[in-house]
């Protein structure tokens, strides 16, 4: 099997989000970075599928030079190589992102059997890059997947829906977006990390097209303006809590 996993470097925002002065980005001073939990599960699944069925895996990201950190993290759990589409500080909208990924996929010698994405990115949450990639490549796409298995020459995917799971069986090659809960991502071993430092990263600098979904600025949502009502300290607050619950009709 030849598997591609796409990830995106995002900041770990903590308890509140702070914007830059120009309001066009989150201030990332003193913030750590990671990939979305959905993508961690995607990477883990890629490694598991290769362990089970043989083949190789690649992790791809469209992001700034610092995103190499995320590529190395993913390679540390066992993904074999990386593709880094290097960008500057500017945002790439979903169509541009999908376009760059499609170009990179088409440029590969070996075609991919499976392209794994997170269901949505943690920051922009546009829910569409994978679908656009699938369209451009003429591949079937299943989203929101919580279980994957090779079956009957295709991929059996379970999509989470209210009250249960919808089952799809798609032929490969296919695009699948996954959600956290698909698996438990492994913790990287140190030998894995050391090897990852030397694994190949194919870097290129795609040109950003004009954005069709053009971000003007970011805005912090207005607080509800509600004043928190302190019911008390410690266990003595219990009666007040129960009074509120009764008032709300919960009890």
């Amino acid at each position, binding site marked *: 099997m030849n598997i591609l996993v796409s990830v995106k470097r995002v900041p770990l*925002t*903590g*308890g*509140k*989000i702070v914007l830059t002065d120009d309001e066009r980005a989150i201030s990332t001073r003193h913030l750590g970075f990671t990939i*979305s939990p959905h993508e961690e599960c995607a990477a883990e699944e890629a490694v598991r599928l290769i362990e089970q069925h043989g083949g190789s895996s690649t992790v791809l990201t469209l992001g700034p030079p610092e995103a190499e950190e995320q590529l190395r993290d993913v390679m540390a759990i066992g993904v074999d190589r990386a593709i880094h589409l290097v960008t500057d500080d500017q945002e790439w909208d979903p*169509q541009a992102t999908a376009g760059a990924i499609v170009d990179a996929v088409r440029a590969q010698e070996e075609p991919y059997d499976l392209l794994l994405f997170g269901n949505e990115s*943690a920051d*922009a*949450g*546009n*829910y*569409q890059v994978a*679908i656009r990639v699938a*369209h451009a490549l003429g591949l*079937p*796409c299943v*989203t929101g997947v919580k279980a994957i298995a090779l079956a009957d020459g295709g991929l059996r995917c379970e*999509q989470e*829906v*209210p009250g*249960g*799971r*919808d*089952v*799809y*069986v798609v032929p490969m090659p296919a695009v699948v977006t996954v959600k*956290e*809960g698909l698996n438990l991502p492994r913790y990287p071993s140190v030998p894995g990390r050391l090897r990852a430092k030397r694994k190949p990263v194919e870097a290129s600098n795609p040109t950003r097209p004009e*954005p*069709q*979904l053009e*971000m*003007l*600025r*970011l*805005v*912090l949502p207005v*607080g*509800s303006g*509600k004043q*928190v*009502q*302190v*019911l*008390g*300290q*410690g*266990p003595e*607050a*219990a*009666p007040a*809590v*129960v009074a*509120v*619950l*009764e008032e709300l*009709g*919960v*009890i």
Partner: protein
Amino acid sequence: MTALVFLESRDDEVSRQAVAFASQLGEPVSAVSIGGAYAPRAWGQALAAAVQEREASSILGPGSERGNEVLAHAAAALDRPMAANCVSLTPGQPARVRRLRWGGSLLEEAVVHGAPLILTVAPHVVEAAAEVEVTELEAGADADVQVRERVRADGGGVSLADASVVVSGGRGVGSAEGFAVIEELAELLGAAVGCSRAVTMAGWRPHTDQVGQTGTKIAPDIYIACGISGATQHMAGAKGAKKLLAINPDAEASIFTSADYAVIGDLHEVVPAISNEIRKTRGS
């Protein structure tokens, strides 16, 4: 020109909210739903084809999993941008929207270029339209990407996404066994038990209990969050809660900025006290 609005089903509330939202465009609404087994690619193509047929200047849909998926397919087929989970719209050439980022903890103001305007509407930003005339749209068959069957989710108890009361524990619970006090209170209230991501990472609860941006999004009447500091990723899953009671020993915890009610204290003392108080009230 019409505003084509996709409904997951006639009765789906968030879809009808999208219909109401569409009225801002000042054009007649053409509300459609699609029958048969769910086939996202085919449904998206059907919507794309309907644009010309119905002279649609825009395609709207609910900001739900299905809504986002189908409209993304339509947008891909038409090679047009799609703005997901919008909370506001300024019609124009080009239109401007505000949409959700970070699960709702941040908003983006964006220009959506080109036509038709394709967007999904974030849940619960407008009231659902009362009367909606819905027509059926035919979608072609899609052998590859089509739902074959539905399997029931396992696990009993109250479903987290549907529960009207949710009690959650975070890092402050300290261990898997520590959740006993949370479960006790949940049982007394007929509530579902939730948790934060740190808890599932620690292996104390399964991921199906996780409330958050990448877990379950809840919308209870009241959400009781115990020992949870209030990271944005968690709060993104709890936005839908009508009321939030936070129990935390740290008076400066960020969760208190979003809470309606607060108890400053250790959940291991406070939660059992609440349970006892409930039992007393019922007993009398």
